[in-house]
């Protein structure tokens, strides 16, 4: 009965979404407030219906109702509760339902917290959200019904792919979806603004927090996925430039560009049509990611449910969304009035450069990801594009970006003083040079270390540059400590957000460079008692034994990790697990970290020919991997801190209202945090 309620709720949701998509749009056109206001109760109703459907599916998973086909395919009674719940979105149908639920949550948030929005903008944006929801609801109802029954009901389920039975991956998809779907808000606001024919600072101020929310979730979601790949796949790698990884990274890049260009719209009332275009593109890329992952046009290690009919449907959805929005853009965008002019060396100039580099990077990764498809369609043969391509094109784009990233925040709006900024950054420059020389010497001083040392150097440049910028703002060491503290407390949260996020990027860069350059590995057969030395530590193999897990059997190896002087650091117990439902082997690496370097041990297959108790073992010396997680966490934290900025906060609508009254004259003094 409960699955039928869920199915019915979905159909009801479709009706509500249709009403929400049409009525407020008509209302906004006719300037009829009553019709426009319908968007708000409709959003609440839509959320309730989708919520009921999602709860119904979750219930079926928790009670293991195998008469529901989806539960039978993806669950098992032996599974721990966490993975029964994460099984809800660990499959195509359920993840679509989660996608729609998140769409509904975002609409609800606008309906509840968007009281200070102009009614027309709100009505149109919510109608746009509802149109997207209609598309996805049609998709799920016609091609991917999660509540389909089977009769007679099987006794037990097939189980969830064991690779997905992991806390990291349980929360990876919801985070990614919160990111993808979050960009739908920026999209809906962009379309609403295009229909109205007006983009102003106030618009940017409403769009930015939504973009920021999406960006934070996407950043953390990608990091979580990378972390999962790192410890679960057992190869010591954290990024493979796999199509599915790229599918989340491409919208991240353009979303990051959007985040920054929206600042320019907000503060300087220019770059408007570009920002609108970015908003459309970013959400389109999110949809494209969904298409690529589920249609089977590209091969990937993350084989999701691929089905051509679904592919056709998503492609149709994608085509309507993108062609529709870009046509509207081509028609309306030329009428958007452009605001203030600025010189190339200015805050706007540096943000524009950031946008150019990030969009180019996004387009390049997209090209590399789609190239196998292009080549296949044009009969150029089957090709695959791998890390060498991506590294070769991505790094040269990121180097200038990171160099400018330290300078940009030091420049004033409109016309900046490059010489002055450079002079204030001398400390960062000295530090970067110092790090460059130090790493170069420490790494052994051969030719191949120059690139790595340079990478660490620019990481240090960005980190120090970001800290110097903060120190400048609070007049550190230039004024009395009380003044400094007062200024530090007075800085807007958005400024702290930027400092944190940029520092996070610097740390991430160092992690990526350091690990890529100095990672080492060792693969061998070991008998009990054997010792392998790698990266200044040694691993003593004590032997391996069978252990039983709740739904798997495993071989558990035991290693003593010792430092250079022979002191015991840790006992490591990697496992090779064999799951029964579905039959599949996974390897659980043992990772020991000292905060800078990870020590990574994997146990492989037994090798009886090499003596009793001998096993294939792999060790990875992973310097700077923890920096990846510190960096991305800091970036996410920066986004969250920036979200708490006073100007985004709910209940401070007065200033926004005054903006609506005079859209041509943005209240600059309040917005610019440090008027020099």
């Amino acid at each position, binding site marked *: 009965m409960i699955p039928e309620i869920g199915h019915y709720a979905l159909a009801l949701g479709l009706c509500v979404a249709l009403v929400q998509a049409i009525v407020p749009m008509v209302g906004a056109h006719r300037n009829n407030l009553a019709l426009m206001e319908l968007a708000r109760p409709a959003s609440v109703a839509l959320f309730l219906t989708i919520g009921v459907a999602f709860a119904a599916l979750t219930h079926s998973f928790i009670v293991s109702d195998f008469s529901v086909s989806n539960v039978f395919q993806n669950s098992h009674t032996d599974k721990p509760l966490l993975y029964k719940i994460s099984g809800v979105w660990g499959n195509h149908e359920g993840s679509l339902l989660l996608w729609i639920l998140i769409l509904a949550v975002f609409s609800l948030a606008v309906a509840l917290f968007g009281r200070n929005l102009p009614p027309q903008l709100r009505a149109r944006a919510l109608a746009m959200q509802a149109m997207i929801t209609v598309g996805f609801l049609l998709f799920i109802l016609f091609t991917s019904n999660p509540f389909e029954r089977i009769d007679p009901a099987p006794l037990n389920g097939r189980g969830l792919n064991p690779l997905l039975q992991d806390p990291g991956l349980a929360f990876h998809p919801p985070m990614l979806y919160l990111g993808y779907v979050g960009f739908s808000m920026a999209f809906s606001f962009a379309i609403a603004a295009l229909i109205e024919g007006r983009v102003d600072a106030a618009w940017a101020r409403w769009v930015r927090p939504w973009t920021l929310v999406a960006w934070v979730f996407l950043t953390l979601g990608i990091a979580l996925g990378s972390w999962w790949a790192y410890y679960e796949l057992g190869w010591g790698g954290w990024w493979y430039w796999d199509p599915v990884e790229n599918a989340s990274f491409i919208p991240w890049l353009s979303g990051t560009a959007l985040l920054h260009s929206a600042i320019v719209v907000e503060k300087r009332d220019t770059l408007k*049509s570009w920002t609108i275009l970015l908003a459309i593109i970013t959400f389109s890329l999110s949809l494209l990611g969904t298409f690529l992952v589920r249609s*089977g*046009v590209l091969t990937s290690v993350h084989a999701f449910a691929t089905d051509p009919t679904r592919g056709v449907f998503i492609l149709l959805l994608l085509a309507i969304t993108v*062609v529709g929005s870009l046509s509207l853009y081509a028609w309306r965008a030329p009428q958007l009035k452009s605001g203030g002019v600025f010189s190339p060396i200015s805050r706007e100039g540096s943000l524009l450069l950031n946008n150019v580099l990030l969009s180019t990077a996004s387009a390049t990764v997209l090209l590399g990801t789609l190239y196998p498809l*292009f080549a296949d369609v044009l009969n150029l043969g089957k090709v695959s594009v791998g890390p060498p391509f991506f590294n070769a094109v991505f790094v040269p784009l990121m180097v200038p970006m990171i160099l400018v990233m330290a300078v940009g925040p030091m420049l004033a709006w409109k016309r900046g003083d490059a010489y002055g900024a450079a002079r204030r950054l001398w400390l960062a420059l000295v530090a970067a040079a110092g790090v460059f020389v130090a790493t170069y010497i420490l790494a052994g001083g051969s030719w191949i270390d120059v690139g790595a040392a340079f990478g660490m150097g620019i990481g240090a440049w960005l980190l120090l540059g970001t800290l110097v910028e903060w120190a400048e703002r609070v007049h550190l060491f230039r004024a009395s400590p009380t003044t400094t503290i007062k200024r530090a407390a007075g800085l807007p949260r958005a400024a702290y957000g930027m400092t944190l996020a940029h520092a996070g990027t610097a740390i991430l860069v160092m992690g990526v460079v350091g690990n890529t350059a100095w990672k080492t590995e060792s693969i061998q057969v070991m008998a009990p008692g054997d010792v392998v030395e790698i990266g200044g530590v040694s691993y003593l193999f004590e032997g391996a034994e069978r252990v039983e897990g709740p739904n798997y059997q495993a071989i558990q190896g035991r290693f003593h990790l010792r430092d250079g002087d022979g002191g015991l650091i840790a006992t490591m117990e990697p496992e090779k697990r064999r799951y029964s439902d579905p039959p599949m082997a996974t390897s659980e690496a043992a990772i020991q970290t000292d905060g800078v370097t990870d020590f990574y041990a994997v146990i492989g297959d037994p090798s009886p020919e090499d003596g009793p108790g001998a096993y294939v073992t792999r060790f990875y010396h992973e310097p700077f991997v923890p920096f990846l997680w510190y960096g991305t966490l800091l970036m996410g934290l920066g986004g969250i801190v920036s979200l708490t900025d006073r100007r985004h906060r709910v209940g401070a609508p007065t200033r926004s209202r005054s903006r609506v009254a005079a859209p041509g004259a943005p209240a600059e003094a309040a917005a610019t945090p440090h008027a020099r």
Partner: protein
Amino acid sequence: MMRRIIYFLPLLVVAVLLVFFIDGLQRDPRKLPSVLLDRPVPAFALEGLPGRDPALTGKDAFTGQVTLLNFFGSWCVACLQEHAMLSRIQAEGLVPLHGIAFKDQPEDTLRWLERHGDPYDRVGYDTTNRIAIEFGITGAPETFVIDAAGVIQYKHVGPITEQVWAQTLRPLIEDLSTP
């Protein structure tokens, strides 16, 4: 006017992309055709396994009649899976079955053949893995059907099952053998 055209650019790019997607949906990226189909067997020179005769030393073994060429290795689990089937093919005596061991140690290969039975007529031992690259091998086992003129007619990727033999390989071989 120029300015207005720029605003249509994104739409144009998307239109091109969509054409590719529509076409791409009808293809299967997992299908890997062999570039060697309908081409003569590449020339190669190989050593045999020490102490096992006859050896597969070059492409002249593939002329005169239809032959099967199987790439295998003692390290390969799927090869063991198809091993019984290979023995039956050999017992059937329809075609000569040659093998090339690659990514392996000669003593391991010999021990493996000793333990599980030796279904091959001639065996070559690919010391450098160059031959496997010449034949475009993507994994093991892979089996080629070569006609009497020494031209590759078919490649099967993965273990040969009862079904593959009965429904694909044997009809093809019989077809090729009757001129």
